[in-house]
């Protein structure tokens, strides 16, 4: 039987003006189990807390109820006071007689009566409270960043600068990501490479950062503070430690017809290649599908010419296991495939290109050395038409229902750059809405229209077709209520972006939830925007939702702050109010594991004694208290009632219900 102490707070006049606090304290004295009941002006004050501590000691209290303000306000305060007096902090319950009583009722009798019921309800609960202990788990002081684009680079640099080890796992042969492919960046028009490549170099030179390029995460086990990750280091057929990046292999390779992914397939590259001049690591990789030696066994020219003997055609994928305390997912995006948008003629016309292809065509290091030419005939286009929202805001099933967010700005950028570099070019932009919120963003777009004379047409294109090599762009001009056809030399499609498809696998490995568009879900849209619901997993960049470079960098730094905040701790206190299964009642059905949003529930084979010396091995549930967040979804799902929640047990809630009803 608990020895319960009850402490009714006046909160000055906040409670006492409407609730007869003395009467409440007096009435409660008669409750079975209550051995002490007191009221005081400010329970949360030094003196008030002392009063509680003294009473606990003097009356050997085993549990206390404080009738005061909302537990969201002072539960922690009173728990600490109880702990200081030697009581387990979870033996404290709060009856909210301020926000839920004195402040909303006017009649004193009615409010007093309700306060008594609320205190009785808390007593009913506290009678069933049991001491709870927060667990502790150690923290591995190393972070994993998945994805080596600008998001991953920024997060890694920030974490490493705080003194923690970071590994960047990048599936491509170099870090840099999409930003490395861009020409200029809005709204200031800095050259993308000029601002990105120094950061790439910083990563490579940082003693705390290990870049695992051409690698993929294969398996993730463990939980916050303690992830065990298996990483596949894909065979690049070049010894990373030997290759000096001299590129002689690229020159000599006879198989030069591979599509250059980095240039969006606009030109070709050899079978052995370094993706681009500033690649980090500056190490070659062999495409085994294209390499003559690997396909036919005859060739080996690169091996012959390699001065340092770095070429190794027999290399195999390797696996490494590493431990991490925190994981940042920064897997980025890709433009959608345009198979469902044949009306724009992308598949049939070389001169219908995507915006990312245009970035490469305008880039000094691109396939045309920065000279803007038509892919079909290498001529300078005189009339260029941009089409916005290609595949974005599409609920017909052909595209994506969301706004891709970056297209309005980069199209304004493209239009402006073209008009600046080639003033004789006519530039048209078909738009549905121009969405340019952000610092200096709308000004940027207006500059394109007002100063650079870009022709913005409110309307959408219905068809692009080729007549004698000219691209006829037929669309609506809604302002003038006309249908127009613009004879163009080049058509640029502002193609919707979608999360890099590999994010699906990553999400599964991390039990991080993913939405219907394959974007990773943040823990709270407003207040926890960089945390995944899975503890210890953080989200940076477009993998979480469409965003531009400034936003991506901000989010990456926010991730880093969260990771550093986690890694500075030696041990993590785990939530005490976690799900707790009764193994004897569990039938191993997995329903609880299915509803768990955190992957806290696993199954173990366990031996049970049956009596008579016999044993049986059964599959039963096991909750990882370090991962469980204590929502209780599993408790209700369990068909056999085997699952309960500490601190909010079924019995506790039932007796609360009973106490309320028995008024």
């Amino acid at each position, binding site marked *: 039987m608990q020895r319960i102490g009850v402490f009714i707070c006046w909160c000055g006049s906040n409670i006492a003006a409407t609730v007869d606090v003395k009467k409440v304290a007096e009435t409660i004295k008669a409750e079975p189990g209550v051995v002490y009941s007191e009221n005081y002006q400010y329970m949360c004050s030094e003196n008030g807390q002392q009063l509680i501590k003294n009473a606990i000691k003097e009356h050997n209290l085993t549990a206390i109820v404080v009738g005061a303000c909302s537990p969201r306000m002072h539960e922690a305060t009173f728990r600490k006071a109880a702990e200081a007096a030697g009581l387990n902090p979870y033996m404290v319950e709060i009856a909210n007689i301020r926000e839920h009583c004195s402040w909303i009722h006017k009649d004193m009798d009615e409010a007093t009566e309700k306060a008594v019921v609320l205190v009785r309800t808390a007593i009913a609960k506290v009678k069933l409270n049991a001491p709870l202990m927060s667990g502790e788990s150690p923290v591995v002081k190393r972070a994993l960043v998945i994805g080596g684009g600008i998001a991953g680079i920024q997060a890694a640099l920030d974490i490493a600068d705080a003194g923690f080890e970071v590994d960047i796992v990048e599936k491509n042969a170099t870090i840099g990501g999409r930003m490395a492919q861009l020409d200029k960046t809005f709204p200031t028009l800095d050259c993308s490479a000029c601002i990105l490549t120094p950061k790439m170099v910083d990563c490579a030179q940082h003693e705390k950062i290990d870049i695992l390029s051409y690698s993929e995460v294969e398996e993730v086990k463990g939980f916050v503070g303690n992830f065990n990750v298996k990483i596949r280091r894909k065979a690049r057929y070049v010894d990373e430690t030997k290759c000096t990046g001299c590129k002689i292999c690229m020159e000599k390779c006879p198989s030069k017809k591979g599509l250059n992914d980095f240039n969006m397939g606009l030109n070709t590259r050899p079978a052995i290649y370094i993706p681009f001049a500033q690649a980090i690591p500056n190490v070659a990789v062999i495409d085994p599908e294209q390499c003559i030696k690997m396909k036919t066994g005859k060739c080996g020219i690169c091996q012959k010419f390699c001065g340092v003997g770095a070429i190794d055609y027999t290399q195999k994928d390797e696996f490494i296991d590493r431990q991490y305390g925190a994981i940042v997912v920064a897997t980025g995006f890709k433009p959608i495939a345009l198979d469902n948008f044949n*009306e724009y003629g992308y598949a049939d016309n070389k001169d219908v290109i995507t915006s990312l292809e245009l970035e490469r065509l305008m880039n000094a290091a691109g396939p045309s050395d920065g000279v803007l030419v038509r892919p079909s005939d290498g001529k300078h286009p005189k009339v260029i038409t941009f089409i916005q929202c290609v595949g974005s805001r599409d609920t017909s099933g*052909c595209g994506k229902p969301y706004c891709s967010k970056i297209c309005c700005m980069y199209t304004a950028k493209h239009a402006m750059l073209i008009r600046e570099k080639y003033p004789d070019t006519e530039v048209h932009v078909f738009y549905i809405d121009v969405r340019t919120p952000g610092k200096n963003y709308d000004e940027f777009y207006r500059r394109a229209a007002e100063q650079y004379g870009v022709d913005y047409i409110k309307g959408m294109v*219905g068809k692009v077709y080729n007549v004698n090599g000219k691209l006829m762009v037929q669309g*609506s001009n809604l302002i003038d209520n006309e249908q127009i056809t613009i004879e163009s030399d080049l058509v640029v499609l502002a193609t919707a972006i979608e999360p890099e498809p590999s994010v699906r696998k990553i999400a599964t490995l991390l039990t991080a939830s993913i939405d219907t568009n394959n974007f990773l879900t943040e823990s709270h849209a407003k207040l926890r925007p960089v945390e995944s619901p899975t503890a210890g997993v953080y989200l940076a960049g477009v993998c979480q939702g469409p965003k531009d470079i400034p936003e991506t960098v901000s989010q990456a730094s926010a991730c880093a702050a969260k990771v550093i905040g986690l890694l500075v701790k030696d041990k993590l206190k785990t939530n005490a109010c976690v799900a707790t299964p009764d193994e004897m009642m569990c039938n191993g059905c997995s329903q609880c594991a299915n509803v768990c949003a955190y992957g806290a529930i696993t199954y173990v084979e366990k031996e049970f004694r049956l009596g008579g010396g016999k044993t049986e091995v059964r599959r039963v549930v096991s909750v990882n208290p370090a991962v469980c967040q204590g929502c209780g979804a599993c408790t209700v799902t369990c068909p056999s009632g085997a699952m309960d929640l500490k601190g909010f047990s079924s019995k506790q809630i039932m007796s609360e219900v009973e106490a309320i009803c028995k008024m």
Partner: protein
Amino acid sequence: MTKQERIDNLLRLSGTDVKKCMKCGKCSGRCPAFNEMDIKPHQFVSLLAQGKIEILLGSDAIWNCLSCMACVERCPRGVAPAAVVEAVRDTVVRAQGKNGLKAEDIPQIVDEFIPQQLLVSAYRKYNK
């Protein structure tokens, strides 16, 4: 019938959700009969959504829409402008004396080349 009832009737008859329109104008960008329509495909959706049905019911465009479904096919929001045009046309031709094609006119039109399909389809579209 009150005006609201007539609006509701058109909405029901069209079977399409005009509120889904995001006013991109792709329907009118694609329409092959655009220049022959006094009220444009996107306006059919917009005017119905606003309840301005007198303009629709008085339009000549209903006789020139080809029902070619290009607007329906390409709408990014799953709206069917052609169904709105048809709902308006149905409403007009179902009113007494408002047929767009009268049976007695047909003998003068018919020549030796006109296929049955043309007579039937035009009659179905323009007459009730």
